[in-house]
């Protein structure tokens, strides 16, 4: 290993060379059925985002990310599902893996 560092552990040597740990750069909690938010620290070329329901509902909103404006938006499906089928309390985790 020509750079970085190594740690000797009971499970062997850990080093930083091949590390690809996901970094959670932002955890956004949404409290509306539809809306949008600015997430300037996220770049979809470097990672992804996932939806976590805090208060469970049958349906999950459509998430759309605009990497130019750095905006995430969420809304119901175009189908006529009732509002009660969606949660207004969920989290979106934005993470980078590089």
């Amino acid at each position, binding site marked *: 290993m020509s750079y*970085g560092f190594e*740690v*000797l*552990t*009971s*499970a062997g040597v*850990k080093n*930083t*060379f*091949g*590390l*690809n*740990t*996901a*970094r*959670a*750069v932002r*955890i956004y909690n949404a409290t509306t059925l539809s809306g949008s938010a600015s997430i300037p620290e996220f770049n979809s070329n470097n990672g*992804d*985002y*996932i*939806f*976590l*329901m*805090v208060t*469970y509902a*049958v*349906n*999950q*909103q*459509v*998430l*759309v990310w605009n990497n130019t404006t750095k905006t995430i938006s969420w809304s*119901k*499906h175009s*189908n006529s*599902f009732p509002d009660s*089928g969606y949660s207004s309390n969920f*989290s979106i*985790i934005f*993470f*980078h*893996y*590089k």
Partner: protein
Amino acid sequence: MTYGAQITNGNGDLVFTTEEPVFEVIGKGTVSLDFVFNASVGIWPDPDYSSYSVERNLPVYRNQNSIGDWDDDVLTLYEVNSGDRVYKWESRNNSTGYRQQLLWSHNTGSVRYVQVRLASSLPAPSTNYGMVFYNESGAVTWSDSSKVLDNVLPLSITSTTNRWFYWSGTVARTGGTLSCGNFRVRGIRGSTSSFIKEASDIGFLSPANSSNRDTRYCGLTFDRSTHGFSANIDWNSV
């Protein structure tokens, strides 16, 4: 950042800072075959329902936990073997707290899973050697004695070594006469060369009444934005 530590890997990618949470491994397990779903299941790969395929005799694996043991911030990664297709369903009962994930897989043995949580604070090391990182608040954000996902990659990759996946997506339930509520599902298909995320539409379908599948049977409507990540996990060390 003006203090703390950060790590850059061999590709020059920033992969860790002391101020950001990591995916801590909090458990692992194996789900075995529960039953074989002997009705037919329609798989619609296109939102317009222009075509579909029918799966029969799908082996079903059931991963059951109650809320509390399996909190909302816990992510479950399932192992998808090469050439296998796995469809993940999730259902809950908000009154009782019962929660389960159902897998349809052609793997006729068992399916392994690893549970992780996005952790801003890890347990203090139990040894007096090795390395520990602390954040501004004094919480442990990395230590060599903690189990964290240390090899996380995009969901779709051209690697056959990463076969553990967490995936989520957008899905909405359509009408149906079957008990099909509280489902969320995404499909992943593993091949010998890459892992493919399937934005398929999945519903129950009676062979004798396939023409009425939109109104008489449970269906799920997707967009095509499956999200998540894969990980290279050493089962023996997590």
